[in-house]
């Protein structure tokens, strides 16, 4: 029996009030937390709480974005203020729990700050730190603060009101118009207007239509898609259902790389809970709209993140891009009309519907509306996942939010938008963070990863790594990409080893041109970007290698290991040994 949405909300609120009445401790256990040792802390915390016979709820939450402070543990005081402890080890827990039991905090050098209006005397507010101050948290409003494993908690913070509003009071056309008004553009890299894209699918009257949410995210240096799905999967599910309603689709897939256990588990659980609440399935919330969803997997393949390759992977084939036209909105998965959005794009949708397109369009800069979810990594003091409005400069992002280089050296280069985005020089810190500003400077914002390198890095070294990645991940369908990448990485390895030939730069340029002309998808078309951008900003590094026979910084010296695609095959003896007999 389907409950009304108000009844669902009331249950969720009652649960939240009950939890807030007691001691509430949360531990961030997303990927970055795990790498910092959060699971060890969580386990120790649970056993410490049990041995003290404390009545406390210990909850797992996702990534709040302040990855430099992981593992993060936060204790909620009785006035609702949450005290965050940074870089917690199991040894810190007794003191933290002693303090929590008496309603205070300790020890102060372990406190990162507090969240919540009331604050706590003598403790800094996280809102005042440069890492938080610049942020406008829309898609990441719940990450690290709401339990991703519990739909009730999401509903209690206003979750699913966007869907309820859409289903009860908006038509498909109005919904698409609202998204168009918001100015939301695709966050996967292409920056195509989302409302217009939805309009293409809505225009088709075929019976089976799909909405696909892309969380493949193979870009090294970016983990915001996985971060969102892992930390706030319900927002992604709600956004997908709204997208399904707006476009008239009947089925949705969240597409994740197999092996990313955290995001997979959270997404599957969120879908299951949405079914239980009647928010997925037949006649959602009593409307005549029905929608189903599941999580689909790919194996390890970077190109699977390309929209047509993604559909091939869900169909169970090799993830190789298709030729377009026909475009996915005409003939996509299994020949049915399909719409593909990035996780980040979808994550904005519930708030846009709830607060209106007008509200969203006031955030941001010129034609880049809203926020960018950045992953700042590399040689920086405060690596993390930050949601900032468009219109800041890259310098503000790198120096103020990320706190400059950790090594104390000067910033030499930025690597943005994934391996295909290429590199930028230090003078690019002036560039405005928006789609037009970035592309005018010859860079891509892409998935939002920004990797910072200091002046101890040789541009040849970084280009070699990026191209080796692209070579490893080329799907092999178009020979200019498959062979060109292999060729380029060989030439770069030769230059890095100071065995370059005088015409190597010209050779690379001509190979790059062929790749750009002769490849179906962005992997080959943009595959020369790492080298062309490195040559643009750091030709001197190449010159020193070629003419003086040395590496300008020394970072190219030493062995360079890269992954290979070849794997040992089973031998004939193997077949003979365990061949099974068919009955």
């Amino acid at each position, binding site marked *: 029996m389907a409950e009304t949405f108000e009844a669902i909300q009331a249950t969720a609120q009652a649960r939240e009030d009950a939890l807030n009445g007691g001691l509430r401790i949360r531990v961030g256990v997303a*990927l*970055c937390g*795990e*790498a*910092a*040792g959060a699971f060890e802390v969580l386990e120790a915390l649970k056993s410490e709480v049990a041995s003290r016979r404390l009545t406390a709820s210990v909850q797992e939450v996702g990534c709040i974005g302040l990855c430099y402070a*992981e593992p993060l543990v936060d204790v909620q005081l009785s006035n609702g203020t949450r005290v965050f402890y940074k870089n917690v080890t199991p040894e810190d827990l007794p003191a933290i729990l002693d303090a929590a039991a008496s309603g205070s905090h300790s020890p102060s050098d372990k406190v990162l700050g507090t969240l919540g209006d009331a604050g706590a005397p003598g403790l800094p507010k996280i809102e005042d730190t440069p890492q938080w101050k610049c942020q406008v948290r829309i898609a990441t409003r719940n990450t690290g603060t709401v339990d991703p494993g519990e739909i009730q908690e999401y509903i209690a913070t206003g979750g699913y009101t966007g869907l309820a509003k859409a289903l009860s009071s908006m038509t498909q056309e109005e919904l698409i118009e609202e998204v168009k008004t918001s100015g939301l553009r695709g966050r996967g890299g292409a920056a195509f207007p989302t409302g217009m894209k939805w309009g293409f699918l809505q225009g088709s009257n075929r019976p089976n239509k799909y909405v696909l949410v892309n969380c493949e995210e*193979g*870009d*090294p*240096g970016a*983990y915001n898609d*996985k971060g969102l799905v892992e930390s706030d999967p319900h927002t992604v599910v709600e956004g997908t259902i709204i997208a399904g309603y707006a476009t008239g689709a009947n089925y949705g*897939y969240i597409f994740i790389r*197999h092996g990313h*256990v955290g995001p997979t588990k959270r997404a*599957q659980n969120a879908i299951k809970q949405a079914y239980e609440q009647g928010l997925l399935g037949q006649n959602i919330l009593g409307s005549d709209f029905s929608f*189903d969803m599941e999580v*689909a*997997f*790919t*194996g*390890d*393949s*970077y190109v699977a993140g390309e929209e047509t390759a993604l559909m091939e992977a*869900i*169909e*169970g*084939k*090799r*993830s190789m891009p298709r030729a377009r036209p026909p475009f996915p909105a005409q003939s996509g998965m299994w020949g049915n009309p399909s719409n593909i959005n990035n996780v980040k794009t979808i994550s904005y949708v519930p708030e846009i519907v709830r607060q209106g397109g007008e509200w969203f369009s006031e955030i941001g800069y010129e034609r880049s509306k809203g926020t960018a979810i950045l*992953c*700042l*990594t*590399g*040689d920086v003091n405060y*690596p993390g*996942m930050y949601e900032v409005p468009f219109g800041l400069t890259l310098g503000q992002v790198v120096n103020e939010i990320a706190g400059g280089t950790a090594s104390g050296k000067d910033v030499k280069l930025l690597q943005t938008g994934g*391996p295909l985005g290429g590199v930028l020089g230090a003078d690019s810190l002036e560039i405005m963070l928006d789609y037009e500003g970035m592309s005018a400077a010859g860079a891509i914002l892409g998935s939002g*990863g920004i*990797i910072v390198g200091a002046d101890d890095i040789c541009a040849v*070294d*970084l280009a070699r790594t990026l191209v080796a*990645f692209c070579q*490893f991940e080329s799907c092999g369908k178009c020979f200019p990409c498959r062979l060109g990448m292999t060729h380029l990485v060989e030439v770069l390895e030769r230059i890095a080893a100071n065995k370059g030939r005088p015409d190597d730069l010209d050779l690379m340029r001509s190979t790059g041109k062929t790749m750009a002309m002769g490849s179906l998808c962005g992997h080959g078309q943009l595959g020369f970007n790492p080298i062309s951008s490195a040559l643009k900003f750091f030709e001197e590094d190449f010159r020193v290698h070629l003419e003086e026979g040395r590496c300008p910084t020394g970072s190219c010296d*030493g062995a*360079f*290991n890269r*992954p*290979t695609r070849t*794997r*040992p*095959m*089973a031998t004939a003896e*193997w*077949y003979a*040994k*365990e*061949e*099974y007999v068919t009955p």
Partner: protein
Amino acid sequence: MVEVAETLRARVVSAITAQPQPTVTVLSSLLAIEEEFGYIPPQAIDEVATRESVTVNDVWAVATFYTNFRFTPPGRHIVEVCWGPTCHLLGAQSLVERVQNALGMSGEGDTPDGNVTLKYNTCLGACAQAPVMAADHHLHGRATNEKVDKLLNSLKGDS
């Protein structure tokens, strides 16, 4: 050896049929088999082909395309060193060398005693904690030579 073979087949079949999601494909079946065995037993290819009504060649095409699939049993422990640009800038290559030296290897692959499989991963997804490595799919960030030694030693014990 009929008994061994039948057990193998039963495990393959149950891995394929126990997939929870509604959409079952060649790829999803292969992923399920790999999760069960840690590799794709060559005989499982036939089983997937039969069940999905495709040719054995179609299944091999998919299995050899995705780089996570392997066709011989992996080592008892899997050590992955992240090799992405962020980790590279923060010293991944020297970690790779440390691991290789400790294991007596010169590249990716399995140790001769079958205890450890070494892989370079293109991104483990925890770039803020670079350089990152993983042991048996559990991530370890801010890896140093000391952490590498400790981690590899802990894998020696319970072989």
